[in-house]
């Protein structure tokens, strides 16, 4: 699981470090790549971010929710050891765009869906806000865990600035060198063939997204069926109460059965709520994640396409041989960095995905187990009630009752 990040990434053409690399982000990212990837061990971490405390703000123009972001860090990039700021969804959205722009060779984590169909979902309901808060927290934690993205200046500003709007307006160009360079890649070139390993990643992501989509639909269907089952249960239980009112001796056990069914109904409702709030959103996030990853793959293709085209053009112009012109070298450099970054991120992504799904599916199993345990407890508690009445009336003039 924990492996040295440095090995693959340092295999660069022409040996040594990428030419002319000097921006702070790159050098410290290089340093990070040499370190062991040990997120699991909390002691070696030097950056902690938490999203909590949602609050509703009512203004003349609009109503919205802000979340508190608390940051604790010993990194030199932070002036203070601790920060606490308030951000709203569009601030997160801004951050993500900036990251995509400035770190195009990396996989940027997804945000929860921006738009919600008004009328269907209550944007200010406790459940919705809590679900969103968890997703935003996950988003920032994924960035925090990333050796390159966590040092991004936009990220830093997001975590520390008192008033983010000033920075937004200023539109400070904080692009990394890589970001700058990829930005200028012309899109006109078409890649003839994707290299095998990236084609494999593309295929994987396609199938992966497909399967997740299916699981999402199944999960939704199950929740729907469970809710319909719940509706019937809620009618079923009270009928036993009605019956109990007619009876003398049977009244207590029947009332007990009614209460029991009521408890099971409540347990089922809790299960469906949990699945809706915790399971479905994570699935959907991963689908969004794989969509954005496919875009990065396409960008990589473009970079490679440009390089190959330029290389071909040079090969045709026999004058410049054997020296390779500077701009072609730049393209090659760009491509190889991109490939390296992407591969590293892919491996990191695969590990995290495995952890995330392990946790998600185990959570689903747990919730179901808890549901059954609650039901079991409810029914076991009324067995004594049914049994004691039975023993009280053992004598009967007739046979012991028909056998089954």
């Amino acid at each position, binding site marked *: 699981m924990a492996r040295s990040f440095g090995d693959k990434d340092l295999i660069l053409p022409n040996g040594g470090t990428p030419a002319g690399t000097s921006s702070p982000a790159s050098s410290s990212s290089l340093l990070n790549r040499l370190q062991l990837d040990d997120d699991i061990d909390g002691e070696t971490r030097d950056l902690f971010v938490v999203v909590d405390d949602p609050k509703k703000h009512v203004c003349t123009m609009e109503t919205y929710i802000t979340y508190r972001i608390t940051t604790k860090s010993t990194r030199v990039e932070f002036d203070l050891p601790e920060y606490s700021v308030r951000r709203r969804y569009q601030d997160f959205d801004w951050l993500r765009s900036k990251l995509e722009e400035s770190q195009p060779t990396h996989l940027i984590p997804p945000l929860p869906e921006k738009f919600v169909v008004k009328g269907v979902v209550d944007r200010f309901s406790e459940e919705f806000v809590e679900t969103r808060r968890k997703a935003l927290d996950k988003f920032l934690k994924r960035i925090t865990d990333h050796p390159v993205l966590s040092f991004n200046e936009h990220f830093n500003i997001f975590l520390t600035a008192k008033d983010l709007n000033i920075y937004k307006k200023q539109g400070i160009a904080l692009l990394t060198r890589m970001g700058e360079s990829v930005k200028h890649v012309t899109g006109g070139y078409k890649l003839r063939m994707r290299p095998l390993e990236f084609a494999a990643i593309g295929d994987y992501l396609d199938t992966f997204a497909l399967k997740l989509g299916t699981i999402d639909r199944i999960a939704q269907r199950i929740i729907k069926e469970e809710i319909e089952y719940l509706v019937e249960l809620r009618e*079923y239980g009270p009928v036993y109460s009605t019956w109990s009112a*007619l009876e003398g001796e049977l009244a207590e056990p029947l009332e007990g059965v009614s209460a029991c069914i009521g408890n099971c109904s409540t347990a089922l409702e809790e299960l469906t709520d949990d699945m809706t709030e915790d399971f479905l959103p994570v699935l959907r996030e991963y689908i969004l994640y794989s969509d954005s990853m496919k875009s990065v793959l396409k960008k990589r293709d473009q970079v490679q396409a440009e390089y190959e085209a330029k290389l071909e053009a040079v090969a045709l112009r026999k004058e410049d041989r054997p020296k390779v012109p500077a701009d072609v070298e730049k393209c090659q450099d760009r491509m190889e960095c991109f490939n390296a970054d992407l591969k590293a991120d892919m491996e990191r992504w695969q590990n995290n995905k495995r952890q995330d*799904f392990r946790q998600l599916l*185990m959570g689903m*199993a747990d919730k179901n187990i808890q549901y059954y345990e609650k039901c079991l407890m409810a029914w076991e508690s009324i067995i004594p009630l049914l049994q004691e009445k*039975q023993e009280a009336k053992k004598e009967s*003039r*007739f046979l012991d009752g028909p056998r089954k």
Partner: protein
Amino acid sequence: MEQASPDPERQLQPGLLEPLGRSDAGLGVAVDEEAEGAREEGSGGDTMTHNNFWLKKIEISVSEAEKRTGRNAMNMQETYTAYLIETRSVEHTDGQSVLTDSLWRRYSEFELLRNYLLVYYPHIVVPPLPEKRAEFVWHKLSADNMDPDFVERRRIGLENFLLRIASHPILCRDKIFYLFLTQEGNWKESVNETGFQLKADSRLKALNATFRVKNPDKRFTDLKHYSDELQSVISHLLRVRARVADRLYGVYKVHGNYGRVFSEWSAIEKEMGDGLQSAGHHMDVYASSIDDILEDEEHYADQLKEYLFYAEALRAVCRKHELMQYDLEIAAQDLASKKQQCEELATGTVRTFSLKGMTTKLFGQETPEQREARIKVLEEQINEGEQQLKSKNLEGSNNLITQFIFGIQVWTNAKECFSKM
């Protein structure tokens, strides 16, 4: 208004046999009196056989069901199910059982037997039969009368029916019941010869009685209300239960889809593959478990239906009582007017009837002690029914508990698979 005047001879002749020392204080006396007439009529040989029959302990079972084809009354081809009834006598000494009779009967014959008993024992709550057609079904498939699960549950219900009659001190002595167990051919003719159909009261008469009885017995009125409300609540319960079962089925079955998609997903994964694959298998197990669970629950539904039918039978007895009460009141009126006539003709006229004989004819063989005894029997039967219901409730909840334990098992297994991902 026609008055059904009970003819002691017709009523009693094919019905009752000589009691055999199994007597309970109140009832024994009543039965003896009623049997008085029969003893004179019954043939010596038959009575002896019947006596011996009941001296030994009897085991009755409906052991098999078989599909048959035949021609019905309109000479059309039909398919029906026949049930094998086996009667064994158990020797007192060594407890071993010997097969004494075995014959095949179909559902309609059971129905005939029950209708006969309803007419001849109006004061007794006759045990119910299992449903004629599958009602309160949750799944379209189980509405089929030929469905093996339905047939099996019916077999059990028919067996319970016979056992309950056999364990009833009065019903067990009925000759037609005895013939049902022993005489395969011509049994229908024997039943029809009793002419019980003529004796069956019309529904209209029963309804009339409900509204015109002047001094209804409060206990019977209460019983009637109870049985009405009970029928209503249990019908409601059965309807909702069927919907609950239907929904639960849906929930389990959709989980089966997880099995397939986990398997497909596992194909593109390296480390996660095994975990996903085996978890998917557990989802399949989970989805297929619902069939057995719901089949078990059908037995609970059957018990509820029995209770429903008992309520109906109870209602029938109350209705019968109302009819008799009504007849009684009308007869009392008549008697009063006839007494008057009698007094007017008293001088010089030979009495053409005896008052005792008249009241016997009009009021039936009922003495206050007998009525008390009947009510007591009714209450005992209701208690027994409640007792059974409690035990069925217990069984039902045991079934549910098995279901929950199974659910926990499956999900714990799945969780283990996920943890290995």
